[in-house]
């Protein structure tokens, strides 16, 4: 009886532990499947026209997504100048000045803001930046993305500032520097590698966001001069082309998806490499 039970326990052990391994490798395999599929399907559609030309009218073969590439860059630029300063300074406050209760509230709110569905952020940006001027614009899209950049930047900044040893701060203060001078000339520069990495990660995340752009930036078949008109972006192109009925647009959706995926993954790989080398928990 005992022998049977022992055999049962031992085989259960082997079976369950094997299953956990299968699960882990299975999930990782999905990543490679996705990559392979995109390279297979999108790689064949990438050509010079894709990067340099405007989209052709509906249903016609050819053309490219040059306007969407430029559009994504413009939106990211806006997101960066709106979101990064707020995130950086709020992060500095939490790490260097913060009291107890208020910091806790800010930190908690930041985390919750990070979890707000992106479509809701889009609605918020719509009611702030589209309703008052009554038209869609690059600015509204940039504001939506900028809002999403804030929480990630705050947490990255705070975490990297906290990783700077106290002795560095004490050294600066012992030399007579005031607190803000210590922060501005010693602590933040020492943490700058990590902070910049965190910012890049934040931008990489919003670069792939579609939902907040649908009713803020809207999309555009043409170039979008200035900042005050509807503008195209790579994720919007992937979405619109994928749900269209045209084969050539499906082809371009794969290509645009491949470009987007490559950029996002490369940014993530690069950033995490830097973070790991610095020996700080990733954000």
């Amino acid at each position, binding site marked *: 009886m005992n022998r049977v039970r022992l055999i049962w*326990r*031992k085989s*259960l*052990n082997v079976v*369950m*532990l094997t299953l*956990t391994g299968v*699960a*882990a490798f299975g999930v*990782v395999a*999905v*990543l490679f499947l*996705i990559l392979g599929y*995109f390279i297979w399907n999108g790689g064949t559609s990438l050509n010079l026209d894709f990067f340099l030309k405007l989209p052709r009218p509906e249903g016609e073969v050819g053309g490219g997504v040059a306007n969407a590439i430029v559009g994504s860059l413009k939106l990211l630029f806006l997101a960066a100048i709106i979101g990064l300063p*707020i995130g950086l*300074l*709020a992060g500095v406050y*939490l790490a*260097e*000045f913060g009291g107890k209760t208020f*910091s806790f509230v*800010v930190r908690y709110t930041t985390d*919750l*803001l990070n*979890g*707000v*569905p*992106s*479509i*809701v952020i889009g*609605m*918020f940006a719509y*009611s702030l930046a589209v309703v008052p001027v009554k038209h869609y614009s690059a600015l509204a899209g940039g504001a939506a993305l900028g*809002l999403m950049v804030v*929480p990630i930047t705050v947490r990255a900044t705070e975490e990297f500032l906290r990783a700077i040893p106290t002795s560095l701060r004490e050294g600066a203060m012992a030399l007579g520097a*005031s607190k*803000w*001078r210590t*922060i*501005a000339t010693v602590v933040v520069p020492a943490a700058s590698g990590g902070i910049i990495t965190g910012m890049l990660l934040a931008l*990489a*995340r919003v*670069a*792939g966001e*579609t*939902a907040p752009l*649908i*009713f803020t930036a*809207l999309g555009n078949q043409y170039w979008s001069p200035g900042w005050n008109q509807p503008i195209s972006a790579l994720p919007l192109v*992937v*979405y619109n082309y*994928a749900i269209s009925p045209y084969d050539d647009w499906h082809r371009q*959706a*794969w290509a645009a*998806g491949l470009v*987007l995926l490559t950029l*996002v*993954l490369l940014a*993530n790989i690069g950033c*995490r490499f830097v973070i790991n080398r610095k020996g700080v928990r990733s954000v």
Partner: protein
Amino acid sequence: MSTATTPIEHAAPPESGPRALLHRLRHGDEVAHVVTLTFAALILLITTLLVFELWIRSAPTRGKFGFSFFWTGVWDPIGGDFGAIPFIYGTLVTSILALLIAVPLGLAAAIFLAELAPRRMSDTIAFLIDLLAAVPSVIYGLLGIFVVVPLMRTTIGPALKKTLGFLPIFQGPNYGVGFLTASIVLTIMVVPFIISVSREVLLTVPREQREAALGLGATRWEATWKVVVPWARTGIMGSIFLALARALGETMAVTMVIGNDPKIRESLFAPGYTIAAVIANEFNEATSDLHRSALIELGLVLFLITFILNGLARLLIVATERGGGHS
């Protein structure tokens, strides 16, 4: 202030009074404090403003339908009649189904990474899984449309009908798009969150716990399942809430494969609709203020649910990492 023990403080400026304030102002400390404080407060302001805007702009439907908005099922933008039930149903069904698949899968993978894999291998796999979490949702949507939907139509759907077809949830026509397809896509999207949070929580379980169990003659699996996992269960619950919040709010990938039909159907093969998807599809073409207000109210509901879930998840994870969930 005792001058004998701390002579250095003599050189420092007075600690209180207007002169002290001036001194500190000159050195910029207070200014820096106030400036950074303002930006920290700005985050609170933005979040409050977000709730306020959604609340104000959903006033028309809140006034007209009140709470009946949440238990009527008619969605008629032209007739001006709005009920949220089909969307709430679709959101819950897809998210819960996704978790039913993702939780065992994610927990198993996390156990492997935390308990079995050598540290190096565990770190590498965790890194790859973090990459999976970074893939934009529109990419998953694209794969959903062109890979999962055809698979559903030709392979998964028929196989399920053959084996489990006696259950009402696996009956009816199979178009490829629908609840089950959306759930499969969602599963792939939330699994990385469950794995990486659960792995971190499992890694915080003290080594003595494992050693004690093994020393008492437990097998490796028994030590893991009966000692380590229960110890970490609060944190694991946190990771599940986090994943649930994400699944509920996920927009693009679901919009592309759910079928976009505001009906409640018991078959998982049937097309449905979710809150996020209807907002994404109809907000731009909203025919009236009432229609737009209804969509914003849906957004408000989504916001509140995810807000609560994320809050709970944070608390649970923090609680476990501080002291272990042995209660």
